[in-house]
């Protein structure tokens, strides 16, 4: 096995090794791809509770009285929608051409405090972009941006996930966290717990100080929560119809061609967010391509970059995999907007038939397609 010279370790690295994690490089971090069988881990999350080390993701705290206005310009979705404390929003961050720089979640914690979580792989790009937008503000701007590298994150997901997490909390915290509605977060003494996730199951994402992360991991293990690797994370999110930045979209792709139209807040019409003009034009003209789900009807596995052939022209698979919950292969694909019902996918010189569907493929453990 080769040495990763520059790979970073999260505070949970030793825990992964202890649990027999197969470590691989992900965005410059040494992370567990599985702990034995990614199919077993996938099923564990769909049927019980599993946990992911997502400490490599980036927590950014925005503080100051000018934060709201700044985020309203920076993001395609509108933080003004967040009126209740702790409410979260999923949004794209676009460039001037309307391309997606990243997809992220932002929590409204106070009028002068918003917390944002962005992808590990896009950390440098995102920060460079955000700082350049800040620099073009006038003097006396009240906004401080803090990169919270002192924080780790564990995502606990599955039908039994919330119950197991709540068991670990003391009474008044347990009550508050138990009352959390989906897509809300709450700050406790040391932990920040949000009812969000990337698997299509219920659960929590827990932000915890670095030096407390290993203890929390052990406590969750003791409750029967199993460690889950990145391999299962990918099959779970794909079944849930969730995009992965870098494969399903990138800076050259508009949110309208990435199934993200629902994340754009067009109203109020005078909110001039970055990229608005470009995607408004595209919306008026109609996008050439759209992101859809595919279910393979023949034996085989759909994989990224395979060619998709439709009656209205060609497209491409963006993310493909074998779905452990459905027992067939599924994918997200970018195809001509007019295509519908079915198509063919070219796999090793054969043309296999696939059904065009609307994601998600699985919700709360049940097949939707």
């Amino acid at each position, binding site marked *: 096995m080769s040495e990763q010279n520059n790979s970073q370790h999260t505070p949970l690295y030793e825990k992964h090794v202890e649990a027999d994690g197969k470590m691989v490089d992900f965005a410059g971090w040494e992370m567990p791809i599985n702990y034995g069988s*990614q199919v077993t881990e996938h099923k564990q999350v769909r049927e019980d509770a599993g946990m992911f080390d997502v400490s490599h993701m980036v927590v950014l705290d925005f503080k100051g009285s000018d934060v709201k206005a700044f985020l309203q310009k920076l993001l395609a979705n509108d933080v003004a929608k967040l009126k209740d404390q702790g409410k979260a929003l999923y949004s794209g961050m676009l460039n001037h051409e309307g391309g997606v720089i990243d997809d992220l979640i932002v929590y409204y914690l106070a009028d002068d405090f918003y917390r944002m979580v962005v992808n590990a792989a896009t950390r440098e790009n995102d920060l460079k972009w955000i700082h350049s937008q800040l620099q073009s503000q006038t003097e006396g701007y009240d906004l401080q941006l803090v990169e919270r590298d002192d924080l780790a994150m564990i995502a606990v997901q599955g039908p039994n996930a919330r119950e197991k997490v709540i068991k670990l909390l003391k009474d008044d915290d347990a009550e508050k966290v138990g009352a959390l509605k989906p897509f809300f977060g709450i700050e406790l003494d040391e932990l920040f717990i949000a009812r969000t996730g990337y698997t299509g199951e219920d659960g929590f994402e827990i932000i915890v100080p670095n030096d407390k992360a290993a203890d929390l991991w052990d406590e969750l293990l003791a409750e029967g929560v199993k460690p889950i690797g990145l391999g299962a994370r990918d099959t779970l999110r794909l079944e849930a119809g969730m995009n992965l930045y870098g494969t399903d979209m990138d800076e050259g792709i508009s949110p309208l061609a990435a199934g993200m139209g629902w994340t754009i807040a067009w109203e109020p019409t005078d909110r001039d967010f970055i990229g608005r003009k470009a995607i408004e034009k595209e919306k008026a003209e109609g996008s050439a391509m759209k992101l859809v789900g595919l279910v393979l009807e023949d034996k085989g596995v759909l994989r990224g970059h395979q060619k998709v052939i439709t009656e209205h022209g060609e497209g491409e698979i963006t993310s493909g*995999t074998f779905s452990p919950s459905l027992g067939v292969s599924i994918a997200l694909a970018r195809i001509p907007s007019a295509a519908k019902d079915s198509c063919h996918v070219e796999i*090793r010189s054969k043309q296999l038939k696939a059904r065009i569907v609307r994601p998600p493929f699985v919700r709360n453990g049940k097949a939707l397609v």
Partner: protein
Amino acid sequence: MSNENPSDLRYTETHEWLRDNGDGTYTVGITDHAQGLLGDVVYVELPELETVLNAEENCGVIESVKAASDMFSPIEGEVTEVNEELDSEPELINTAPFGEGWIFAIKPANIEDVEALMDADQYEAFYQENS
């Protein structure tokens, strides 16, 4: 440290093994080392019965969650049997790579070709050097 690769088998550089069935045919599968590299197997494309294969010829595909891996015939010969269990239980390749996860059986064109393959110790040395 003992060799986990059974000593009665022969091995190829592409991680296939052969077992002498004593009746002129040899069973072929992939090694434990190979299944570990592949990850969970989800589909197997088996060679067709009675096909005549050349040595190192592509004779099937093993699809795992990670990737599609070509399978190569270890020797020249005719396919005499295929493991149809793998249609419904492809994961046998992961759980029993040297046993129930066998893939097909072949009748060699030349018995010397089998003897020219690596034994268990040579195979272990080979993949340890090359990983």
